[in-house]
């Protein structure tokens, strides 16, 4: 109960307007309304060297339990209308057809989906089959996000991926034949990669004609095999200058080929921006099920336990799977909203921002904005505040100042 009691007047007002429901009985999950759902499918055929996500490598014995757990979480989640659904992972394509079908049905049983609902499912190239695509299409899936990563065999190997380049081309063809929207994940700055190789890779991707790309510079995070390899000197990171060049090349080449850059790592043909992901960056609310998944309702953010077994044990035992829970202050929420908004290339419109958050960015962080505008890292463009290209490249050095109340 107290967990959900509004802590300040501003927040109270917003609560009323958007109708978060304070439950009569404490439930294992925070309660709130949202028009987006994320489901985390923890399965992978193996763990890649750069991955620190919540994944479960190996047998599918856990599938029935996982189906039951999602169903349990659904019972703890307020029903309502959804405009976007996203199945991520892990690799949702590792689910067997019956398990996938049961999950697809669960979504329909629990929620109303608007007719134009965007529904994305992530997939490994080698898992994509006509039957699988048919099943998804039947249930309303509109979009496939393919973990292609690279079109160069050597690089796939360096990245520790199990699929072949042929798998990607075949999957691309199948998805397009099925009439689904296609998004490709790509990685640059793999160990040993040159700028020329990246350009070559990028042009292969462009030739697919996919509607959407998510392009990530390889980051070596704590808890990954690459991290320990690097620490032991067995893995060389691509030098920063080259990484910067690769990133800038990506921006230039994709723009030229007709893909709009709309968020730090995301590019789309006009009309094909990922509506689900935009909700994260627009600080909207979303439901979430599955291990490691994060839900957000009006400043309450909860993350489920990342261990699949712990998650299952808890949910099936009727206990909360929540691992981390935080209640953001109004101040933190609006500063976070500013940062997330600036990660989109559209940037932030000061009056629109103020209408929702009670202050313009200039009022929120006058000193920091002034400095960054003067340093040419931020700029005003058609009445909106946004990052310059140089600002984009060093944006992580900017956010701290905007999150700080003295900013």
């Amino acid at each position, binding site marked *: 109960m107290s967990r959900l009691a509004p802590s300040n007047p501003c927040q109270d007002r917003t609560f009323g307007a958007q109708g978060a429901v304070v439950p009569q009985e404490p439930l294992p999950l925070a309660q709130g309304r949202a028009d987006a759902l994320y489901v985390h499918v923890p399965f992978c055929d193996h763990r890649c060297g750069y991955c620190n996500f919540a994944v479960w490598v190996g047998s599918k014995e856990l599938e029935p339990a996982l189906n039951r757990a999602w169903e349990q979480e659904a019972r703890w989640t307020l029903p309502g209308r959804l405009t976007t659904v996203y199945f991520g992972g892990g690799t949702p394509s590792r689910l067997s057809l019956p398990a996938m079908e049961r999950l697809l049905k669960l979504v329909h049983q629990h929620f109303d989906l608007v007719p134009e609902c965007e529904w994305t499912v992530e997939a490994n190239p080698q898992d994509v089959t006509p039957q699988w695509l048919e099943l998804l299409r039947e249930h309303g899936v509109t979009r496939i996000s393919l973990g292609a990563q690279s079109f160069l065999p050597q690089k796939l190997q360096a990245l520790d991926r199990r699929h072949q380049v042929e798998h990607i081309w075949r999957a691309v063809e199948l998805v397009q034949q099925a009439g689904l929207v296609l998004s490709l994940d790509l990685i640059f700055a793999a160990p040993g990669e040159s700028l020329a190789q990246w350009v070559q890779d990028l042009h292969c991707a462009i030739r697919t004609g996919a509607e959407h790309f998510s392009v990530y510079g390889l980051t070596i995070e704590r808890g990954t095999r690459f991290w320990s390899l690097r620490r032991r000197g067995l893995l060389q990171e691509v030098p920063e200058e080259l990484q910067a060049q690769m990133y800038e090349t990506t921006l230039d080449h994709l723009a030229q080929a007709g893909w709009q850059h709309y968020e730090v790592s995301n590019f789309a043909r006009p009309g094909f921006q990922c509506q689900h992901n935009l909700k*994260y960056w627009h600080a909207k609310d979303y439901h979430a099920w599955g291990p490691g998944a994060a839900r957000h309702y009006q400043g309450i953010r909860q993350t489920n336990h990342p261990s699949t077994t712990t998650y299952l044990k808890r949910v099936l035992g009727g206990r909360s799977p929540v691992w981390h829970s935080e209640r953001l202050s109004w101040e933190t929420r609006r500063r976070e909203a500013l940062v997330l908004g600036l990660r989109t290339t559209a940037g932030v419109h000061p009056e629109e921002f103020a209408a929702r958050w009670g202050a313009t960015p200039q009022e929120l962080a006058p000193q920091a904005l002034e400095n960054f505008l003067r340093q040419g890292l931020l700029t005003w463009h058609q009445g909106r505040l946004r990052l310059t290209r140089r600002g984009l*490249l*060093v944006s992580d050095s900017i*956010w701290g100042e905007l999150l700080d109340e003295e900013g």
Partner: protein
Amino acid sequence: MSQPIELIRNFCIIAHVDHGKSTLADRILLATGAISEREFREQFLDDLELERQRGITIKARAVTLHWDYQGQRYELNLIDTPGHVDFHYEVSRSLACCEGALLLVDAFQGVEAQTVANTYAALEQDLTIIPVINKIDLKHARVEEVLQEVEQSLGLDPSEAILCSAKTGQGVSEVLQAVVERIPPPQGDPQAALQAMIFDSHYDTYRGAITYVRVVNGRIRRRQRVRLLKAGTVHEVQELGCFTPAPTPKEELHAGQVGYLICNIKSLSEVHIGDTVSTADAGPELALPGYQPPKRMVYCGLYPADGEDYQELRDALERLSINDPSFEFVPETSDALGFGFRCGFLGLLHMEIIQQRLEQEAQLDLVQTAPTVTYEVLTRDGRVHRITNPQQMPDPGQIQEVRQPMVRVSFVLPAEYIGPIMKLCTQRRGRFVRTEYLSPTRAIVVVDMPLAEVIYDLYDRLKSITHGYGTMDYELLGYEPADLVKLDILVGGKRVDALSVICHREDAYRRGKAIVGKLKQEIDRHLFDVVIQAAIGSRVIARETIPAIRKNVTAKCYGGDITRKRKLWAKQREGKKRMKSIGQVDIPQRAFLAVLDAGAQKRK
């Protein structure tokens, strides 16, 4: 019943660190029945612990013992002396209260730098010196060679040396016998006007200042009104007595005796070591010779890492100075570091002791600037300025002459390292004075050099060159003109006051290059290029650039990433806030010691 003056012996033990001074003192206490066997064991352990912690005895003590010898009851006053050169003046005052000294030399280590320095100090005071070779029970004891060293380096008769082991007690009664037979009784007239010398003091929370005195002439009684001649203050003696080793109140102390006074003095700053205690109506002519105010030779800035701890730091410094009047501090402001204090110390070791206590007792996070010596600057208007901070350096146009303190450094070391040490001293602008051989394998090298070079990193270099076998000591010679300049450090075009140093003009290029190189490592990259320069006046002599961050961007920031990323960004921001900002450049606190570390290992 008053103790006849001819049955009093006042003596001290002088030794190099770790040669067993505390153990011998405790052994003497045991032999005279001042402490029990059990207390001896406990004290033995305590003192070892203390020595292990500090490596030296910081505070002098005076213990009064009684020993029956050949039908007479002798009063033996054992005065402990601080062992280190930083307390040279305090040592000299303690020695002035004695008629004799036990010169303690480790039978394995032999004569060391402080052995020599302390012996010379004792000879200056005309003390009778009894050489004592300690630790003869050690397997590796080399008694014959050490006796030879004593003769060679100190000119003492080796046949007069007593062999003992403070640890086992062997030879301790011979030591006591020698104290009675060889050390002369004190001179002094109990009927003359009162003259007592203050040789130490410490602060007791309940009683105020406890003052240690040696009565030279006359007598001093409880309830008597006395005057401290230098301080010019008059006090009533509330209690007097001696330590046996527990404080034992007495009715009076007379000429030749050693003891303590409690006069309701609230601050140690009123009690000057070397001052004379006399009667309330006494004139200045009764002052005993040799008084000197404390000479603070090393200064550094101490700043709270968090500006909000300023008051706490002030309180901590005040508490320390109550117990140690030779340490001083005054408020100072730095553009880079904010509000802090300029602190003066007798020497480098004294500085380290104070810092260690600050850290232990106050648990404050401190930023320390590089230590500097006290310079004298003669300006064209004929005035002499004492400079304890590079910031105080007058404009080069006004300077007629800059003088720096010179010291005579004595190194005692295995002969094979003479070459490397001489080379080091030459680099440090040392002037060779002499080399003496203590034995075929060990030598003393005496070199005059600027104190600034000594405090820079000389001790570390000595230890590293001699693999730990070399020891050093130094004494102040005085001031000498030198070609010194102020070297400024500029970060992002702005002068960082706390990083300025004074150095020899010929060293400026090397020092400047080392400092900017070190700062380049210490300062994080920024969103713009950061230029670091070393300059003399307006002339830049070294330069480095820290290139701007080129790429720092989180690729993925979806629902599950947001909390973690926000915390990470906020944490990075917090880290930056703890740094000191010069213009737009954030400088981490450890960078302020870069001037010290540049080209040297930090002294541990």
